[in-house]
């Protein structure tokens, strides 16, 4: 896969499920321009993982608060080719280590979001901080 110049995309979206549909065209456009050879499945997987992280923020950090915001920065870098996504929210934090992930093969009605984020990405960091929580998600593209 050949990459063009390094690129950073910043966006801020209302923390509602309705607005998460905006992630797909934004990330797709960025990847098409900066990494035109990227595999369709890889692109879909990245979008799904970012969607799940944002859905987690909407549901658990803001818990339906209507005025919540999600700030996102997507950084594409070469050598190594990788996409780093930072998400920032000012909602409730949680302890990532206390979350029990579903065992593959068990038939559950919920709880797959975090499982998918881990499964689809190479690095997942969650940093609860004073004034807000930060997710750092990394996917290597080569």
């Amino acid at each position: 896969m050949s990459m063009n110049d390094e690129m950073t995309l910043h966006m801020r979206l209302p923390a509602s499920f309705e607005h998460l549909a905006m992630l797909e065209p934004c990330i797709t456009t960025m990847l098409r321009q900066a990494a035109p050879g990227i595999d369709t499945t890889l692109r879909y997987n990245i979008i799904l993982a970012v969607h799940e992280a944002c859905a987690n923020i909407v549901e658990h950090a803001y818990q339906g608060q209507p005025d919540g915001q999600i700030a996102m920065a997507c950084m594409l870098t070469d050598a190594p080719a990788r996409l780093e996504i930072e998400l920032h929210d000012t909602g409730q934090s949680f302890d990532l280590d206390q979350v029990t992930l579903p065992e593959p093969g068990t038939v559950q009605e919920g709880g797959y979001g975090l499982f998918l984020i881990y499964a689809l990405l190479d690095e997942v960091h969650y940093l609860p901080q004073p004034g807000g929580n930060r997710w750092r998600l990394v996917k290597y593209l080569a």
Partner: protein
Amino acid sequence: MQTVITTTCDVAVLHLAGRFDAHEVADMDTWFREATTRKPPRIVVDLQRVTFIDSTALGKLVQAMKHCRQHGGDLRLCGVQQPVRIIFELTRLDRAFAIFPDEATALETPWEPVSL
């Protein structure tokens, strides 16, 4: 999300198109509640034209499938395309759902009670 609902031989068929996610799933709650009141509840969800499925929508399908099976029926999936299929494969729910290549096969295959 576009939806088309048909009923064929006591089977409720739901054709979805576009995104099936946490936002859209709320609109499907009423339909699933009504469709699962049939005895036995038999549902086919056609995902051929679905371009995106998230974990919330997946959970809704699991919930409806469990309800159908607990009442002697089933919820079958058909037309699951790549890359949408990845969510079923990673969670291994592709082994829990009865997944058929197309609607005709899903409808024609005999309906027998399925244990959870």
